[in-house]
């Protein structure tokens, strides 16, 4: 949001009341209803711009100068959705070249990349331009994600572009690249799942599960406390908890991490899930958890894990106590 005294070029901002091309327009102040207007403590240029905007809106003037006015108003306050609406009406009525509109949006995005209106406007333009704009749209989201890798709007826009306009070819490697930069980037993990599930160029979740499990295990080894990679791993199996419980390699990952750090909360938690799904570790494996205790049954192991978690993850102790209370009914 910028409400400066000077515009981007450093020139003095000329009030609308001093511009000859606006001399025929009577500005309209905001009507806040029955509230008294106390003082005018805010920048007069912003107020004046909006007064002229209300004037052109009231007479539905779809002209070049209205378009320029909305541009100024948006640069001052990109959140005002009515200004964006009116801009679209003017763009349509004047049959403007929408490719040029992309530059305007990119310019506004520099300081407003979390603005709902901006992204909706971008999508409206992209929809009109069609398939040809897909590479440009992917590039635009990459530009925003480069400075804010978890920007929700940019990710939503990107998903829409892929589904509506295409451009899936490099998407999985894009996710891998972002995860290489930051393995904790939950948005990139989500996008990875989105690609595996929806890309017309891939074989789908079931046939990619094995290779994705391998990718995920490597990620876990790099950052064992990363909530996102563990959640992704569980997500790959969905409701197929039996396959998850049968997976020896995943069970081994848990034990490997616990051998390194006996208090690794995600590994304790995941191991608990695996045991609930039927995973049966060896007595030797269980020695990794605590060499002084002999764990003889799955139920004993699960109870042990819950009790550990109640201690090491104390802020969620009630959750773990609840999990513990369920165990006798789950594990026979």
């Amino acid at each position, binding site marked *: 949001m910028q409400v400066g005294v000077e515009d981007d070029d450093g020139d003095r901002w000329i009030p609308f009341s001093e511009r000859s091309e606006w001399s025929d327009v009577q500005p309209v102040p905001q009507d*806040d209803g029955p509230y008294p207007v106390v003082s005018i403590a805010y920048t007069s240029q912003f107020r004046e711009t909006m007064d002229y905007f209300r004037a052109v809106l009231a007479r539905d003037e779809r002209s070049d100068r209205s378009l320029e006015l909305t541009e100024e108003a948006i640069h001052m306050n990109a959140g005002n959705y009515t200004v964006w609406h009116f801009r679209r009406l003017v763009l349509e009525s004047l049959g403007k070249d929408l490719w040029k509109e992309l530059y305007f949006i990119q310019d506004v995005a520099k300081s407003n990349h979390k603005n709902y209106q901006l992204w909706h406007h971008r999508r409206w333009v992209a929809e009109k331009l069609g398939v040809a704009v897909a590479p440009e749209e992917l590039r635009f989201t990459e530009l925003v994600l480069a400075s804010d890798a978890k920007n929700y709007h940019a990710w939503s826009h990107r998903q829409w572009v892929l589904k509506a306009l295409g451009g899936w070819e490099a998407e999985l490697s894009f996710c891998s690249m972002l995860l290489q930069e930051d393995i904790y980037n939950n948005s990139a993990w989500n996008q990875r799942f989105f690609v595996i599930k929806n890309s017309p160029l891939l074989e789908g979740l079931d046939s990619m599960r094995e290779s994705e499990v391998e990718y995920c295990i490597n990620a876990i080894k790099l950052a064992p406390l990363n909530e996102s990679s563990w959640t992704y791993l569980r997500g790959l199996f969905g409701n197929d908890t039996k396959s998850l419980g049968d997976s020896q390699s995943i069970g081994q990952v848990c034990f490997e991490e616990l051998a390194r750090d006996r208090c690794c909360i995600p590994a304790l938690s995941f191991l608990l899930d695996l045991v609930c799904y039927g995973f049966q570790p060896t007595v030797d494996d269980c020695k990794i958890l605590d060499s002084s205790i002999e764990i003889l049954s799955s139920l004993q192991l699960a109870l042990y894990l819950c009790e550990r978690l109640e201690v090491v993850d104390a802020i969620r102790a009630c959750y773990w106590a*609840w999990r513990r209370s369920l165990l006798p009914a789950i594990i026979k």
Partner: protein
Amino acid sequence: MDDSSTLHVQKHVEFIKSLDNKKDLESLLTEHIRMNGAYWGLTALDLMGSLNDLDQDKIISWILQCQHDCGGFGGNIGHDPHILYTLSAVQILALYDKLAVLDSSKIASYITGLQQNDGSFYGDEWGEIDTRFSYGAICCLALLRRLDAINLEKAITYIVSCKNFDGGFGSTPGGESHAGQIFCCVAALAIAGSLHYVDKDLLGWWLCERQVKSGGLNGRPEKLPDVCYSWWVLSSLAILDRVHWIDRESLKTFILDCQDIENGGISDRPDDAVDVFHTYFGVAGLSLLEYPGLKHIDPAYALPVNVVKRVFS
């Protein structure tokens, strides 16, 4: 009154009341969402037992001036109608027990017109789609007792299509789980009597993983805690009946630490600037934590429990 171990109710009431007549740059930049601000401020006031400190007649007359011929409400007088401001307008009238002044059929037909074939909702005529608007439509129509005006089954199907592998929900199918969107989806499903579509334990666990060491809650993994999630996360947990899974005491402390004990108001994080939104989120979060002296809030309708009971009595 110089410590942050208690809620400084009177200060917060004065802070919200002071916004009423404000005309500074900040209020100008938010004039287009004034309806939201009014809803948040007034609901917080009601939770603190001070709803009648502001002039009810003036506020209702202003709200009615924000309504358009199509039935929808804008964020302020002269601003375009949008489903979010329509919901806020209806919620404020519910607070005042004045739903009767509304032509509910007209509002219902506005919302009907925003529903799409796949069950989703546009926010306004320009076609943005988001599960926030599904919540807006369902909550608003339920308060008007006009859920018959939309295809509820399709609306539910769309929300369920936004469910993710981690149990959470996003803004559109495939969108990342985010606590704000989760509130919208879970609350909408609760109002529609369709909570059986939620994986309660999986989502409950994801939600309670949002609590960080400071006691505060974040909205997505690896993000900073923010008082707003004391509402979005906690209300979702409350709907799922799992508030006790998190550490309530440390969350309470985190919210109280975000108070401006000099001038009133609550901020996103300790020592940041306060605003009306975070003041609502903080007070509403404390209400869900059963903080003494506050009215109880309904986690799905985001209105005091007594108001919701009155609407449906």
